[in-house]
């Protein structure tokens, strides 16, 4: 007869880079329910709008997360620029796309490594991080930072990238493709990897939509939803199609990210080819008065930056709805019916970013 147990998983666990806790209710080894618990490191950054004016707050927004840092400040700046009807120069929009895609690139490669570590493939973890370092080098050369780019400001970006450097970046990324193909082929084809991921943590197409999944998690269950299709920044000028898989399991989520790595390289190439000459920022006058929901596609999915301003230099409200927060209900569904041994893989294929969630 099966015994019902409650197994605490996290907040400190070898596979979790950040703290999240689950109470796993199990019948022997089978999980019948999971109750999530967050806010072990909640920072209350949203409340800082009371103390930092709307110009300074771009730096606070960037510090919400270390992996999607650039896209947080980008989403925030876009919201304020929309409220203030600021026409950002086109060159700036292309530069934002290039840095955003570099951010997605290093985030996805980092995830590959962490996922490999979760299923016990430590050398693959090290190889992934070795490749990621090349992307970080490009980021460091163009922005001066590796984690926090500090490039976004309300009204534009702080630095330009000259044509020669852009050409060099595209060349380096193209030459990285061979290494990446070799690296990702292990995730795509390796028997041991597939054995651990195929059919595990299944989320049906209907559940993914009904439970508010976003990003690779939604696209791995067959939905072609990607906020870049809205056409923010320079994406409206680029050829971007959502990467979709249909099997809805851990392996499908892995495949979506693998294919998005190559998509990001292609988007950077497109942006570098089409980027026009011109200024990279405009002067900002006045204070924002109004509200806007900025929606952009982060590596983990759709993020919402809601800004409400009342004509003063301090915003009335800044709220971030992060993709991981939106993916938690589906994470519970994926855990139900799984084996205890598969929990680390399931949680990691959702690519949880607790730093974002604990904004």
């Amino acid at each position: 007869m099966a015994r019902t147990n409650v197994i605490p998983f996290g907040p400190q666990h070898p596979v979790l880079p950040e703290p999240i806790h689950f109470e796993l209710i199990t019948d022997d080894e089978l999980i019948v329910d999971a109750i999530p618990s967050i806010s072990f490191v909640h920072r209350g950054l949203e409340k800082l709008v009371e103390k930092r004016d709307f110009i300074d707050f771009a730096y606070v927004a960037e510090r919400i997360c270390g992996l999607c840092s650039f896209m947080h400040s980008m989403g925030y700046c876009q919201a304020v620029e929309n409220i203030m009807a600021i026409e950002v120069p086109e060159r700036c929009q292309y530069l934002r796309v290039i840095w955003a895609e570099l951010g997605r690139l290093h985030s996805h490669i980092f995830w590959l490594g962490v996922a490999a570590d979760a299923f016990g493939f430590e050398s693959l973890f090290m190889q992934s991080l070795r490749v990621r370092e090349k992307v970080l080098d490009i980021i460091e050369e163009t922005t001066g930072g590796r984690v926090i780019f500090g490039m976004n400001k309300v009204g534009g970006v702080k630095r330009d990238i000259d044509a020669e450097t852009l050409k060099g970046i595209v060349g380096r990324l193209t030459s990285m493709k061979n290494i990446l193909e070799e690296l990702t082929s292990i995730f795509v084809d390796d028997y041991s990897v597939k054995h651990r991921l195929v059919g595990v943590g299944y989320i049906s197409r209907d559940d993914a939509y009904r439970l508010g999944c976003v990003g690779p998690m939604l696209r791995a269950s067959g939905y072609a939803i990607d906020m870049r299709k809205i056409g923010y920044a320079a994406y409206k000028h680029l050829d971007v199609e959502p990467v979709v898989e249909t099997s809805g399991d851990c392996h499908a989520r892995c495949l979506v990210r693998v294919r998005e790595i190559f998509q990001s390289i292609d988007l950077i190439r497109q942006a570098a080819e089409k980027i026009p000459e011109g200024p990279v920022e405009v002067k900002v006058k006045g204070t924002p008065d109004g509200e806007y929901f900025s929606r952009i596609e982060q590596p983990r999915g759709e993020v919402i930056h809601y800004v409400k301003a009342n004509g003063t230099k301090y915003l009335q409200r800044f709220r971030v709805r992060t993709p991981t927060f939106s993916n938690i209900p589906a994470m519970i569904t994926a855990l139900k019916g799984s084996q205890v041994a598969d929990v680390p893989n399931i949680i990691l294929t959702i690519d949880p970013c607790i730093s974002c969630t604990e904004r």
Partner: protein
Amino acid sequence: MSEPQEIIALENNALLGAVADLFAQGFRLVQIGCTTLENAYELNYSFDKDYQFKNLRITVQPEDEIQSISVIYPNAFLYENEIHDLFGLHIKNISVDYKGAFYRTAIKTPFSIENLPKPEAPKQPQDAAKQPAAGQQQTEAPEQQPEIPRPQKETTE
């Protein structure tokens, strides 16, 4: 590029019907957010279908009870627990109710009216401030550098 965003203001009691209608049309719940106003709270329920972004907005008083929409959208429970813990609003019939244990915050309900500084009043034009009406004494304090607003721990009402 500015994305078209529809905001529909509703009465509190019309919320569930409108949400059920959007559910029937195939919209997904994107988020629920709350904003503290001077004496009330503004809740935004955001939905999306085929990149069409729609918001339902209700404005509630601190003592009002809000009906949970987790019966329609199961993922709403996270947002509703968040709003309960950060704003102190009463949301009834949440499918998974953490009863105030969802967020561990240093102060209780940090975004509630009691804990949020009032928005800074828009500045008066300088000419109007410097020229009092004839025969009228200037009673306003001389213009000072705006202070950084601090969270108010005491109720000002």
